[in-house]
């Protein structure tokens, strides 16, 4: 266990240095949610999104989940490059714990996405977001869990596809319907009954609803707890699923 932790730390450090070196990584990943914040957010400011509170209190949580979803789902592209260059094999031929290359990278992604989320919230505040500090901070826990889940699954997928286009096709196909169905940009409170019902099969729906309640300061009405249960459950499933996929890739050529 200690070995796993220290080996994960080694890979985390390596990955973090890579991220910090590439000056574009932090800003580029944020570009899409930033554009939504600046160019779509103001359109909603006079609308009633039926979530209680201001439109910013509904919109910014949606953008945070979108950032985790997009940022997390595509981290596999990075490991694909390394896998094809033989970096993963080089690591696997050392005594390094077999799970460390996966967990170290995923940990880096969580840190990166939470930092980006914090920047997004600060910019949201400049546009007019007002929310309780405790709720905002708790919201980052959800962002972290969700980012971890998606990063682990993304790496697991990337280690088991043949080509980069194959990975991109699968990731894109998964992400877009999930994003729309979860009600990230506009909440499902506006949806007709059938769409609202359909969106309840998407786990991110519960995450975003919970974060919206946190931004309203409504901590105890069950939505937050349900969101936490679904998000944490997803992370646990992704943890074991990601590990299994990563291990599986070591048994095939």
């Amino acid at each position, binding site marked *: 266990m200690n070995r796993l932790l220290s080996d994960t730390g080694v890979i985390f450090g390596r990955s973090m240095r890579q991220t910090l070196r590439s000056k574009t990584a932090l800003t580029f990943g944020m570009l899409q949610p930033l554009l939504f914040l600046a160019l779509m957010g103001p359109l909603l400011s006079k609308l009633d999104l039926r979530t209680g509170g201001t439109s910013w209190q509904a919109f910014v949580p949606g953008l945070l989940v979108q950032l985790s979803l997009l940022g997390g789902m595509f981290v596999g592209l990075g490991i694909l*490059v390394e896998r094809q260059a033989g970096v993963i094999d080089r690591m696997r031929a050392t005594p390094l714990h077999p799970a460390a290359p996966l967990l170290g990278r995923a940990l880096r992604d969580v840190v990166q996405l939470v930092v980006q989320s914090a920047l997004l919230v600060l910019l949201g505040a400049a546009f007019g977001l007002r929310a309780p500090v405790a709720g905002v901070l708790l919201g980052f826990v959800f962002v972290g869990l969700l980012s971890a889940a998606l990063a682990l699954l993304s790496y697991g997928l990337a280690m088991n596809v043949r080509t980069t286009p194959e990975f991109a096709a699968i990731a894109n196909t998964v992400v877009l319907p999930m994003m729309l169905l979860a009600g990230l940009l506009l909440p499902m409170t506006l949806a007709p009954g059938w769409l609202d019902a359909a969106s309840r099969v998407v786990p991110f729906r519960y995450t975003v609803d919970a974060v919206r309640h946190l931004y309203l300061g409504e901590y105890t009405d069950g939505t937050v707890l349900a969101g936490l249960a679904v998000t944490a459950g997803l992370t646990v499933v992704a943890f074991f699923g990601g590990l299994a996929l990563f291990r599986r890739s070591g048994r095939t050529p």
Partner: protein
Amino acid sequence: MPGMTPPVLDVHGLSRTFQLRSGPVHAVRGIDLAAERGEILGVLGPNGAGKTTTVRMLATLLPPSGGRAVVAGHDLLADPAGVRARIGYVAQSGGLDPNCAVGEELVTQGRMHRLSRAESRARAAELAADLNLGDLLDRPTAALSGGQRRRLEIALGLVNRPEVLFLDEPTTGLDPGSRADLWDLVRRVRHDHGTTVLLTTHYLDEADALADRLVIVDAGSVVAEGAPAELKARHDAATLQDAFLAITGRATDAPAAV
């Protein structure tokens, strides 16, 4: 004292079958290999002979379908972690991250072998000096020449002072000068540290010049074995090229001349 110590590499009946949609592919069909401490063993064969699959199995990266092996005193199947701690593995693709700096890759490799930070740095400095990488430490690996890349990749393989160093097609794609440098480097590693080197190649001149002993593989099986001079004498051949032709009935895919 040859023959007195158990071989550092002892492989019996190692095989690997890949299950493809089109049916099973027998990439390696029961290979026997042995190498003693400080020996340079060349595995020579055309592309597709099963050389890379064999090395990947011996480096714990691919589970064998059959057979057994002892690598650096540790059983490949029962104790892969023990094997990993005592080998260096340099893949044909090299395994460098283009974004990482040379010095950083060296230090991280030490950390992956569970050296402390200080030990990793010291070992990286030592290897950089020894392999003439000292001026390149801050450079991203993407900016290295082919020969420099190979030197770094071998340095990474030597971080843990391995008993066995696996080099998979180490000179493919190098210019003649860099190839000669690399041959010198491999000889020096063996001379200075008594490292056993298993290298695969499809270059006959490389096998002839570098290996103490050769194993010729074709279609997943060993078809001949011996010192280059023995192989030539056995087949009454002036060159290894002629011996290879006599053994396999064909030339290697690559031109032997450089």
